C-alpha cells in the first residue's frame, strides 16, 4: 500500500456513493466536451461564411452605377474594415450561350474582402495586381473551358466598347481561385478595374456595388443604415444589405447557441460542485475519528490535507477523463450523424485537455473546504467528539 492506495481505499468506502458521484461528474464532462465540440463547429461555420460583409448598391435599381468617390466616405465610417467593388461588365466569350459573370475588380482589395478564396498558382495575386490585362477565373470556369494560365481569353464588350473604337477586350489568364478547393455555383471571371477604367469608352470611375467587411457582425444593421444615410441626399443614394441576410440570421443563432451552451455548462457545473461538494463534506464528517487516528500515528496536518484533497481531485479528474474520453469515443459517430448540421464536429485532444484541467479545478474547489477542516482538526477534540 502507498499513500495513493490509502486515498483510493478511502474513495471506495461507500462504493455506491462514489460510483454515483463519479457518474455525475463523468456525465457533466461528457456534456462539456460535446458542447465544446459543437461550439467549435459553430465557430468554424461562422468563419467560412461571409456574414460580416455588407453590399452597397444603387437605391432604386441594381443597374444604377455608383461613383468611385463614395469609397473613402464609406471607409471613414466607424466599424468598416475593408472595402472593394464589383461591376457588371456583361460581355461575350465566343458564343452568347457561354454565360458567366465578368467583373472588373481591384485585385488586392477584392481578395482581401473575399478572404475565403484561394488563388493559384503562387504569385498569381501579385501578377494580377501588376499586369494591366491580367485576369483570374473561378476554377470551375477554367475546367469548363479548358483554360490554362498563360492563355489569352478574348471577350466581346457587348455593353462597354473600348475608347479606341473596338469591342475586343483581351485578357491573359494568370490564375484560378477556389474556396476549399471547390469552384463556385456562380463562377466569376475577374479582370483589372484599372484596365477597364482607362480603356472603356464610357462608365469610367463608376462601380456597380461596394462590398465591405465590418468589424462586428452585430453592428451590421447600424452600419448599413449609416451608409445609406450618408448618401441619402446625394445624387447617388444607396441601399445597403448584408451579403446574405440568411447567413446573418444564422450567425445570430450561433451566437445564441454559444450563450446557451455557456448557460447549460454553468448550470451543470454549479450543480456538480454543489452535489459533489456536499457528498465530500458528508464523507468527511463520517471520518473525523479516522483522520484523528492518522494524525495520532504521526501523519502531519498537511499530509492529511493532501489526502483529503487528493480524494476530491482523483474523483473529479477521473470523472473528467472518463466523460471527455467517452465524448472523444462518441465523436466520430456523432459527427457522421450531424453532418450538414455543423460544418465539422470533432472532440479534439485540445478539448480533452481542457476538460482535464477544468475537472482538476472543480476537484480542488470541492476538496478545499473538507481538506482544510481535516488539516485543522485537533486530535483530542476529534476523539472526544467521536
Amino acid at each position: 500500500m502507498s499513500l495513493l492506495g490509502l486515498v483510493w481505499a478511502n474513495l471506495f468506502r461507500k462504493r455506491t456513493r462514489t460510483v454515483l458521484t463519479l457518474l455525475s461528474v463523468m456525465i457533466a464532462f461528457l456534456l462539456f466536451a460535446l458542447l465544446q465540440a459543437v461550439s467549435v463547429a459553430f465557430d468554424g461555420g461562422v468563419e467560412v461564411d461571409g456574414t460580416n460583409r455588407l453590399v452597397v448598391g444603387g437605391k432604386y435599381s441594381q443597374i444604377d452605377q455608383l461613383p468611385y468617390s463614395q469609397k473613402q466616405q464609406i471607409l471613414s465610417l466607424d466599424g468598416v474594415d475593408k472595402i472593394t467593388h464589383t461591376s457588371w461588365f456583361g460581355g461575350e466569350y465566343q458564343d452568347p450561350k457561354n454565360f458567366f459573370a465578368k467583373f472588373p475588380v481591384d485585385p488586392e482589395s477584392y481578395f482581401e474582402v473575399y478572404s475565403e478564396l484561394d488563388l493559384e498558382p503562387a504569385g498569381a495575386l501579385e501578377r494580377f495586381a501588376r499586369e494591366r490585362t491580367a485576369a483570374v477565373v473561378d476554377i470551375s470556369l477554367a475546367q469548363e473551358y479548358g483554360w490554362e494560365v498563360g492563355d489569352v481569353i478574348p471577350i466581346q464588350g457587348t455593353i462597354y466598347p473600348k475608347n479606341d473604337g473596338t469591342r475586343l477586350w483581351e485578357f491573359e489568364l494568370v490564375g484560378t481561385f477556389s474556396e476549399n478547393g471547390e469552384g463556385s455555383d456562380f463562377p466569376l471571371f475577374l479582370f483589372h478595374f484599372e484596365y477597364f477604367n482607362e480603356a472603356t469608352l464610357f462608365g469610367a470611375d463608376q462601380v456597380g456595388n461596394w462590398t465591405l467587411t465590418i468589424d462586428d457582425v452585430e453592428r451590421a444593421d447600424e452600419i448599413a443604415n449609416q451608409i445609406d444615410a450618408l448618401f441619402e441626399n446625394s445624387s447617388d443614394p444607396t441601399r445597403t444589405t448584408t451579403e446574405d441576410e440568411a447567413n446573418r440570421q444564422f450567425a445570430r443563432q450561433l451566437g445564441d447557441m454559444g450563450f446557451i451552451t455557456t448557460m447549460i455548462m454553468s448550470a451543470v457545473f454549479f450543480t456538480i460542485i454543489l452535489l459533489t461538494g456536499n457528498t465530500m463534506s458528508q464523507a468527511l464528517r463520517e471520518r473525523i475519528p479516522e483522520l484523528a487516528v492518522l494524525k495520532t500515528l504521526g501523519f502531519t496536518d498537511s499530509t492529511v490535507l493532501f489526502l483529503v484533497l487528493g480524494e476530491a481531485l482523483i474523483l473529479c479528474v477521473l470523472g473528467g477523463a472518463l466523460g471527455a474520453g467517452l465524448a472523444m469515443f462518441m465523436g466520430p459517430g456523432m459527427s457522421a450523424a450531424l453532418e450538414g448540421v455543423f460544418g465539422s464536429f470533432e472532440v479534439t485532444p485540445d478539448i480533452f485537455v481542457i476538460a482535464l484541467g477544468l475537472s482538476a479545478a472543480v476537484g480542488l474547489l470541492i476538496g478545499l473546504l473538507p481538506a482544510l477542516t481535516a488539516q485543522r482538526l485537533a486530535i483530542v477534540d476529534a476523539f472526544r467528539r467521536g
Partner: protein
Amino acid sequence: MTAAVVCRGLEKTYVKGREQVPVLTGINLEIEQGDFLALMGPSGSGKTTLLNLIGGLDHPTGGEIEVEGQSLGGMSNKALARWRSENVGFIFQFYNLLPVLNAQRNVELPLLLTKLSRKQRQANAETALEIVGLADRARHKPGELSGGQQQRVAIARALVADPRLMVCDEPTGDLDRDTADEILELLQMLNADHGKTIIMVTHDPRAADHAKRTLHMDKGKLVTAGALA
C-alpha cells in the same frame, strides 16, 4: 538509561469559552524504561488527558514533560507528529482501525511515514501480525473481525514501527473478561519479551493486576505512593 517518562508540575487547563477548566493540576511522575504501569481513577479524573500529554497528542499548559529523552513542551504539531511516529504506539478502547483497509494494511499504515520499501513494509506488518497471533487474518477488514481480534490488529499497528513506549487507554474496556485477559497477557508479553514500556489506563482492577504497578488519579492529581513527592 534515561527514564521513559518524567513529568514535573505538569498542568493542563482547557479553555471553554471564557471558562478555564483545570484538568491536571501539577503532576509529578517518573516511569522507568521497561515499566508496565496501570493508571486508575474515577471517570473525569484526568487519566486520558495525562496519557494524551505523554503520548504527545496534546500540548501541556504548564510544567515540564520529558518522554523518551525528548522535552515535549513547545514542540510544533509537525515535530510532535514525527516524534510520535517514531517513539509511541497507541492503543484505544474502540480499536480505531480504518474500516476501509484490511488488517495487514491497517498495520502497515504507520510505516507509510518511514523510508522503508514496499516489500519491507509488508514484511514488517506480517511480523507484527504474527506477534499478536493474527497472521491468518491479514486480509480481513475490521468489520469481519471480533472485538478481541480488532484490538490485536490495533496492537500490531502500535508495534510495527517498533516504539519503546506504548500507551493504552482502556484497551479492554469494550471486551468480555476472557478476551480482555488474552489482550492483557499479550501486553504483558510485549512488556516482558520485547521490552516495551507500557502505560495503561483502566477502570478494571483485574486489568491493573497484570501491570507491574498501579497509580491512582483523582481530580487531576496523582494520589498514590509511587508518584514523586
